């Protein structure tokens, strides 16, 4: 356990010193600024626009920073031979878990900073709802699954760009698969319905974490829904990490 925490701590420190981390905070600040301007010209409930667009901006910048950092750090460790240093002194599963926990912590810090900036803007506009905390927590859960996929791809794909694109593809597929399944169910052939049903089950159901609109209206999810979502995110991430570990053990780095 000490080794896993050591690796997580190194990854965490590395992540907080990355330019991309600060770049993403700037990106999110720009989104907030744009959000503020949009809020000024929006027709109707300005607070709702601020909350909805702000959460979407936070999710977008968090996805970009954490997936990029996860893949970039893995790729850079390969290039700089730091991976050899890790693997010559730690077990492979310790490295994977430590790396995952480190990026997980970077994600949490990023979301925390984002939440503070976002909340300040909403307080200024008297548009803050406590339900937004649940919205940010659900973004975090979504990212936990996404990070496990990023790590999974990093273990066997040497091209950083390809691994990045595949992770983003999982994110998009997981976010829209429910809608796609509904359309297929209505208009598809029996064969396509059959295949798509399993496809839907196999891919992460990220739509289950999509509560941005509800929390923008001040509706927080029930505790049971939060609990089930946490269990689902952890179980799914655990499953993907187990497969990543198997591949990482077999594959020569």
């Amino acid at each position, binding site marked *: 356990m000490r080794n896993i925490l050591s690796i997580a701590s190194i990854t965490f420190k590395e992540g907080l010193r990355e330019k991309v981390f600060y770049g993403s905070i700037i990106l999110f600040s720009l989104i907030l600024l744009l959000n503020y301007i949009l809020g000024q010209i929006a027709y109707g409930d300005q607070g709702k626009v601020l909350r909805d667009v702000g959460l979407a901006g936070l999710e977008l910048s968090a996805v970009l920073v954490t997936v990029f950092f996860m893949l970039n750090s893995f790729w850079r460790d390969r290039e700089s031979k730091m991976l*050899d240093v890790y693997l010559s002194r730690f077990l492979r599963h310790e490295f994977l878990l430590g790396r995952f926990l480190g990026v997980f912590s970077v994600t949490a810090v990023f979301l925390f900073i984002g939440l503070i900036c976002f909340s300040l803007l909403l307080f200024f506009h008297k548009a803050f709802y406590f339900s937004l905390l649940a919205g940010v927590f659900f973004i975090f859960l979504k990212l936990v699954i996404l990070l496990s996929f990023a790590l999974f791809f990093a273990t066997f794909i040497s091209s950083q760009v390809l691994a990045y694109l595949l992770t983003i593809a999982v994110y998009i597929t997981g976010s829209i698969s429910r809608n796609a399944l509904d359309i297929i169910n209505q208009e598809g052939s029996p064969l396509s319905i059959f295949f798509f049903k399993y496809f839907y089950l196999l891919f992460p159901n990220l739509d289950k974490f999509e509560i941005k609109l509800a929390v923008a209206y001040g509706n927080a999810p029930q505790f049971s829904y939060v609990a089930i979502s946490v269990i689902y995110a952890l179980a799914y991430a655990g499953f993907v990490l187990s497969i990543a570990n198997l591949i990482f053990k077999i594959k020569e780095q």
Partner: protein
Amino acid sequence: MPKAVVRVRDLTKSFGKLRVLNKVSIDIHEGEIFCLLGANAAGKTTLMRCLLGLLKFQSGEISLSAKTGFLPENFSPYRYFRGKELLYDFRTKNISKEKCDSLLEMAGLALSKDRYIREYSRGMIQRLGIALALSTDPEILVLDEPTLGLDPLGQKQVLDLMRVLKGQGKTIFFSSHILSQVEGVCDRLGIISHGRMVFLGAVEELLKKKGASSLEEAFILTAGESDCP
């Protein structure tokens, strides 16, 4: 007869159809500095990576009777870490921060341990890498091309550090293709060419066997012979 702390027997490793190591056998004795010499792509790094369990091999046996520390070739640690920070974070639980400080001092980095690694010269990075390799308290140090890309002063500092470590009873297994360094520092050497170990022994034995006046001449004769079909 000194005790062998590293034993490699008939090690064979291929990448696809390319055979990189072909029945390589070596013994490295406790407390000695052993140098693995070879041209580029001769199989030096592959042998070291197999030894450390970083690569799987097709056949043969490897036994290590002590803990190892490793410095990879072209080692480039995190630029935004301070020198001491890297050692503190990577150390094993039996190594204290004070011990890390003493390792940095031994590596000649006591005054620059608080500086960011991005401010280090190549030679300082290599010495930091050796200190890092020592931060698991290993008996055997495996150093892959530790003097690669260093200026003469940097090379001398690394070689001096290796002598100090030998004096402390460490076994050092390093690879190089810079012949001038080998004579002064190593107790025995192995020459690897196209994945085959073509010579094992002391520098004097090699010179005598080849009737050569310099190590360079002896190396060219030895490695060159194995090039001929």
